[in-house]
């Protein structure tokens, strides 16, 4: 359910006289969380920025239709995840046609990216995460870094809580095995 602050924000958004101010507040409230969520999916900063811009444009256009039976932030996460995956799909079509998979390319990008922190363990952790299947990757990021509840992740991914728990368990085991192999 939407919390009181979000309910108030949505009420003001539906009033044409306070619509823009309310949306600005929404952007201000969620931009950073959404940015990091998207960045962990697409890796590159400029790509994350593009995806984030599109996410908020879509949110603005569809916020009137938002049903308050889920939380506003999980609804925004869902749009952001969709946009990020759509972006990767297009990128694969345009650039990575000859490569075996996108994760290999993203992993290479991670090593050469000047915007990635030089911390070795964080780099290895990100590379380990990139070896996971997409859904496990999404679940792990939302659970581990964003500290979301399974019920909230379920609202984003449309997957049952039981399946999410299994995904997270497998993800943790695979990451541990990958990192141990590297050190």
């Amino acid at each position, binding site marked *: 359910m939407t919390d009181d602050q979000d309910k108030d924000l949505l009420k003001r958004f539906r009033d044409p006289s306070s619509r*823009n101010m309310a*949306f*600005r507040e929404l*952007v201000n409230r969620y*931009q*950073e969380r959404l*940015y*990091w969520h998207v*960045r*962990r999916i697409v*890796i590159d*900063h400029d790509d994350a920025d593009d995806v*984030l*811009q599109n996410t*908020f*444009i879509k949110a*603005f*256009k569809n916020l009137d239709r938002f049903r308050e039976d889920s939380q506003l932030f999980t609804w925004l996460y*869902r749009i952001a*995840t*969709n946009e990020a*995956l*759509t972006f*990767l*799909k297009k990128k*694969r079509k345009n650039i990575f046609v000859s490569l075996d*998979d*996108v*994760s290999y390319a993203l992993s290479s990008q991670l090593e050469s990216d000047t*915007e*990635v*922190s030089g*911390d070795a*363990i*964080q780099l290895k*952790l*990100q590379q380990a995460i990139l070896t996971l*299947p*997409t*859904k496990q990757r*999404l679940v792990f990021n939302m*659970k*581990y*870094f*964003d*500290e*979301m*509840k399974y019920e909230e992740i379920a609202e*984003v*991914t*449309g*997957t049952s809580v039981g399946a999410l*728990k299994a995904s*997270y*368990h497998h993800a*943790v*085991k695979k*990451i*541990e095995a990958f990192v*141990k192999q590297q050190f």
Partner: protein
Amino acid sequence: MQNTENHNEPKLNLEGFSEADLKRKAFKTPEGYFENLTPRIMENVRASEHVSAKPTFNWNRILIPSFGIAAIALTTWFFLPPTENTEPNFDMALASLSVEELTEYADLQPAELVSYELVSYNEITIEESTFSDEEIIEYLSTEDEIELNTLIDEIEI
């Protein structure tokens, strides 16, 4: 939003590294990025609002079904048995071919000829579409609204 929901859930355990180490942001952002982000997003949102406010005619709604209809018409024409008036004159057709085309034809292996020559027109049936024009147009126009799980399956990496 601290997570306290499950004590039995697996903890990521990488020897020698604390949770704080592992959760520290691995990526950098350009300096001042978040300070200017809200105005940039609002500017883009306003620009998109301006664009979508213009009464635009969506040519795709006309062109895509037209291409579909044209493709169906062409396919039907191609598979229809030739009438007397349209019976091709083999000699004339042969005369119109270049030497390269004839050589290429002669070089075809028997297995390759099967697909061209051994299929009888009578054996080919065209399934009638059970979709209405509206359903086809609706499907084509909602191409972007792909479900998250479909995207995950498609991009599986």
